[in-house]
C-alpha cells in the first residue's frame, strides 16, 4: 500500500491505496464520487475525464498514486453553490445530452478547452474526437460549447 494525499473538489483526503488502483476507481469506489464515469478503460472514450492541477486528464489512464499532492476536480466540483456554470447551462439549453453517460467527461474536457481562450468550431470538433457520445448528439454538444465560449 502507498500513502496518498490529495485534494478533491477542495477537500483534503489521506488514504492508503494499492499502486495499481486507477484514479477513476479511487474517485468512484474509495471516495464515492460516482459522477466520474468509466467507459472503455483504455483512454479512448473520454467518459472518465477529470482535472488534475487544472488540466483535463483521463482518470482511467492515471494511477491514483501518480496524483499524490495534486488538486483533482471532478464534475461534482464544477459548481459548489448548486447553480450551473455557463457551460452546464449551455448543455441544458441546447439539449446537449441524451443518456448523459458521456456528459461528465464532455464537461471536464470542454472546461479545459475553454480555459485556454475562445476555441474555433474546428478546435471544438477536434477536441470532441476524444470524447465519445453514442447517442450521437455531437451537434448540440458543439453548439453548447460554442455558446459557453461566447459568454
Amino acid at each position, binding site marked *: 500500500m*502507498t500513502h496518498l494525499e490529495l485534494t478533491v473538489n477542495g477537500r483534503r483526503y489521506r488514504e492508503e491505496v494499492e499502486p495499481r488502483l486507477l484514479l477513476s476507481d479511487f474517485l468512484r469506489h474509495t471516495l464515492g464520487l460516482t459522477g466520474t464515469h468509466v467507459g472503455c*478503460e483504455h483512454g479512448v472514450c473520454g467518459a472518465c475525464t477529470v482535472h488534475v492541477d487544472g488540466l483535463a486528464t*483521463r482518470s482511467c489512464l492515471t494511477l491514483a498514486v*501518480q496524483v499524490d499532492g495534486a488538486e483533482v476536480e471532478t464534475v461534482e466540483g464544477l459548481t459548489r453553490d448548486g447553480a450551473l456554470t455557463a457551460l452546464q447551462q449551455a448543455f441544458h439549453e441546447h439539449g446537449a445530452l441524451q443518456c448523459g453517460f458521456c456528459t461528465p467527461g464532455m464537461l471536464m474536457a470542454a472546461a*479545459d478547452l475553454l480555459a485556454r481562450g475562445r476555441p474555433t468550431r474546428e478546435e471544438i470538433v477536434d477536441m470532441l474526437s476524444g470524447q465519445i457520445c453514442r447517442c450521437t448528439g455531437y451537434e448540440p454538444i458543439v453548439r453548447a460549447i460554442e455558446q459557453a465560449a461566447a459568454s
Partner: protein
Amino acid sequence: MKPPRFEYARPESLEEAVALLAEGEDAKVLAGGQSLVPALNMRLLRPSLLVDLGRVRGLDRIEARNSSVAVGARVTQRAFAESPLVPPLAAEALPHVGHYVTRNRGTVGGSIAHADAAAELSLCLVVLGGSVVTNRRTIPAEEFFVGHFTTALEPGELVVETLWPRLDGWRFAFEEFAQRRGDYGLSLVAVALRLEDGVVAESRLGLASVTDRPTLVADAEAVESLELWGNLHASPDYLRNLTRILVARAVARAAA
C-alpha cells in the same frame, strides 16, 4: 480491465531511477502513462516494478542548445506544442498525437521510448536528424528506432532528453491520414526541404506507420519499391497509393 499487481517506486533523482531499473529485469518506466496504463489495464504487460519518473528533477525543461532544441523526457506533448521553441515540423504533427486530453499528460520522452511505428513524434525526430540522449550516450534517432515498440535502449538505459535540430532556413510539412481524428494514422509523411533559388537543394523525406519504424527514403520514387506493412484496415497496395498522395501533398506544401 484493471492493472495487474506491481511494485511501485517514485525516485527523485535520475541516479535513483536507474538503480531501481537495474533491480528488476522486467521493470517498466512510467512517465505520463498514456500508452503504458492502457497496456496495463488490458494486461498486455505485467511488469514486476513500475518506476514513476513523476518526481525526478530536471526532466521537464525545454531549452535552446546550440542549433537544437533540447526537450526533457517528461515534457508533456501539450507543453511541447505550446512552447515558443517547438520545431515547426513538430508543431504541425503534435495535434495528431493521441487526443486533446491525452496530450495533457502524454510525454515527448514516453512517446519516443514507446516507439510505436505509427508515432508522429518519432517520425519528426528522424526527419529532422535529431537524437535521443540517455543516461549513458547519445543515439541518432535513425538508429534509435529498431522496429515496432523496439528501440536501441539497453537494459538499465533511460531516455533523458531528445535533441531536435532547428534546421534554420528549411521548410517543413507533415501529413497524416487516419480513419478518425485521434486514431493511429494509416500513413504518416514528414518532409524537410532547403530551397536555393526556388530549387530543392537538400531534402529529408520520412514515412511512418506503413513500415515497422519511422523510415527515411531518398525521394518520392522510393515509395514505389518500399516494402509496406498491410494491416486489418488497409492492404499494402492501398497504403502505397495513400502514401504517394500524402508525399505529393507534403512536398508541394513545403515547397510552396
